[in-house]
């Protein structure tokens, strides 16, 4: 990848005589100022103000709000709906991280071969990544039509698997997996290209000498490819974890958290608390907890995965 461009031709530097005043080669503060200003204006300031309302009982409209200390956080610990949402969030994330990356790896291994269709297949598997999640959700909502003669059910019937027809989004035990599958369908291509970039960095010579030593495909994958893919695994796991923990659009567009509370996640719960229940202060408390949670998980993950990279 990142082949560094040839630097523009410059004559060799003359002997160092004219050292700039200030002595350093570091660029001035001014370089960071515009970005910092916009970032502070759009993210830091609103987030701090927003976080402040986590300690109030503000409804989201009007002037009335009073400071309630940590009441919202205490309520959160006893809120069955939020706890159920936490469970769903973790299940969804786990499913997405495991299946999306597993599938992405298989696809990458499949197209990193001499098969004739490899370039076309890469494009096909990657294409959903660039489409808006809202549109993908609408598409899958149609595919998941529970009628026996529509969408996925009709397709299953057509290939003789009629017994597998389901109420994909309506069955409370199944809905969350249906949502996860939609995300996996859209993002598996993303994992695939990151693994592909990793595979391209595996030196051919290693495989060749292993083959001479009589190592089979599986053995070569285990002992050569897999260890060298560690950085790609890190990136993929990190990206899909954060994506899974903060999943929002697909759920709102497909199930709105239902049936019942079966697909509510922390993101949908905090959205509903703010806009449907009129409990903005509480919603912000959930958002804060989510942010800290995501940060903690990312931190632990990166620590573990990096150490794994170096020992591998």
């Amino acid at each position, binding site marked *: *990848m*990142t*082949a*560094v*461009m040839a*630097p523009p031709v*410059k004559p060799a*530097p*003359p002997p*160092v005589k004219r050292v*700039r005043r200030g002595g350093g*080669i*570091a*660029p001035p*503060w001014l*370089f*960071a100022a*515009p*970005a910092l200003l916009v*970032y502070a204006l*759009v*993210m830091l*300031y*609103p*987030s701090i103000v*927003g*976080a402040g309302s986590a300690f109030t009982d503000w409804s989201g409209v009007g002037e009335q709000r009073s400071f309630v200390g940590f009441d919202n956080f205490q309520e959160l610990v006893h809120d069955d709906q939020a706890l159920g949402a936490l469970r769903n969030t973790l299940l969804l994330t786990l499913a997405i991280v495991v299946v999306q990356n597993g599938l992405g790896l298989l*696809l990458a291994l*499949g197209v990193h*071969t*001499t*098969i*004739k*269709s490899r370039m076309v*297949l*890469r494009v*096909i598997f*990657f294409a959903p*990544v*660039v*489409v*808006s999640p*809202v*549109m993908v959700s*609408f*598409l899958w909502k*149609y*595919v998941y039509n529970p009628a026996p003669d529509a*969408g996925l059910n009709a*397709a299953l019937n057509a290939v003789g698997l009629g017994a597998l027809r389901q109420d994909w989004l309506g069955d409370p035990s199944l809905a969350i997996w249906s949502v996860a599958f939609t995300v996996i*369908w859209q993002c598996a291509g993303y994992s695939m290209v*990151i693994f592909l*970039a990793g595979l391209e960095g595996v030196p*051919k010579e290693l495989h060749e000498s292993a083959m001479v030593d009589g190592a089979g495909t599986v053995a070569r994958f285990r002992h050569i490819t897999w260890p060298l893919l560690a*950085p790609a695994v890190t*990136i993929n796991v990190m990206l899909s974890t954060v994506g899974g923990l903060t999943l929002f659009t697909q759920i709102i567009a497909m199930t709105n958290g239902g049936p019942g509370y079966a697909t509510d996640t922390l993101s949908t719960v905090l959205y509903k608390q*703010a806009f449907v229940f009129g409990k903005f202060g509480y919603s*912000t408390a959930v*958002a*804060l907890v989510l942010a800290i949670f995501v940060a903690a998980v990312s931190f632990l993950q990166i620590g573990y995965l990096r150490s794994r990279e170096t020992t591998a």
Partner: protein
Amino acid sequence: MRTAYRPRTFVLELVMVATAVAFLFPVYALVTLAFKDPEQIANAPLSPPDPPSVDSFGTAWQSASLGSALLNSTLITVSSVVVLIVLGSLAAYFLARQAGRLSYSLYILFLVGIILPFQLGMIPLYQLVNDLGLLGTYQGMILFYTGIQLPFTVFLYTGFIRSLPADYTNAALIDGASHLQAFVHVIFPLLRPITGTVLILNAVHIWNDFFTPLLYLGGSGRETVPVRVFAFVNEYTSDYGLVAAGLVLAALPILVVFLLLQRYVIRGFSSGLKG
């Protein structure tokens, strides 16, 4: 292991193509739906359209006002990405080359933005954009996307610049160039690979974003493609053919751009993120 094409390779090829066919099934369902009239949809939901009808496309294009939505989306996406590249690369250059605790803290401050859930600052930010008189404007959206995407952009650029040797700039500076000149003529061209990644990741995200434009642009006449499509789908939701045509039309532009630039897009997504 690019070796010869063997019988085993052929079996693999079959398996992969079969996977792709299954993978494409939802797309097939959607596209055929768009070409069918209501009667065909009711009677033969999965068979190819016979005869294909293109009526839905015209109606969908008109009722969802997709023409102007495309223009709005393009304007917002292109402007935001340009501003992001300029501000992000400049800031990252500073952060990567300025040693010291302060610049490191600043870098961490930017990274915090990657994990802040957007809901946290949503209402105060909305208030701010309103106070600035930027609700329902392109500028408001560009400002928003610049701020929201800067952390990720700065992160990508900083990592890349740190891996570059410092000698080139030093040479230029010693030659008497100003910092800005050195950046523009020496550093920025070296950043091409990561700029490609920044451009593509941000463009895809901004183009496809839904919730913020709904909030900021709803009712302004400057709605982006996902917002118009969402409203359209909600309005005609029982007319599957029409909805499908709207979705196909709305997804088409970015898919065409992707197909034209696929090599760069795929590389953009995978490089720069490689650790």
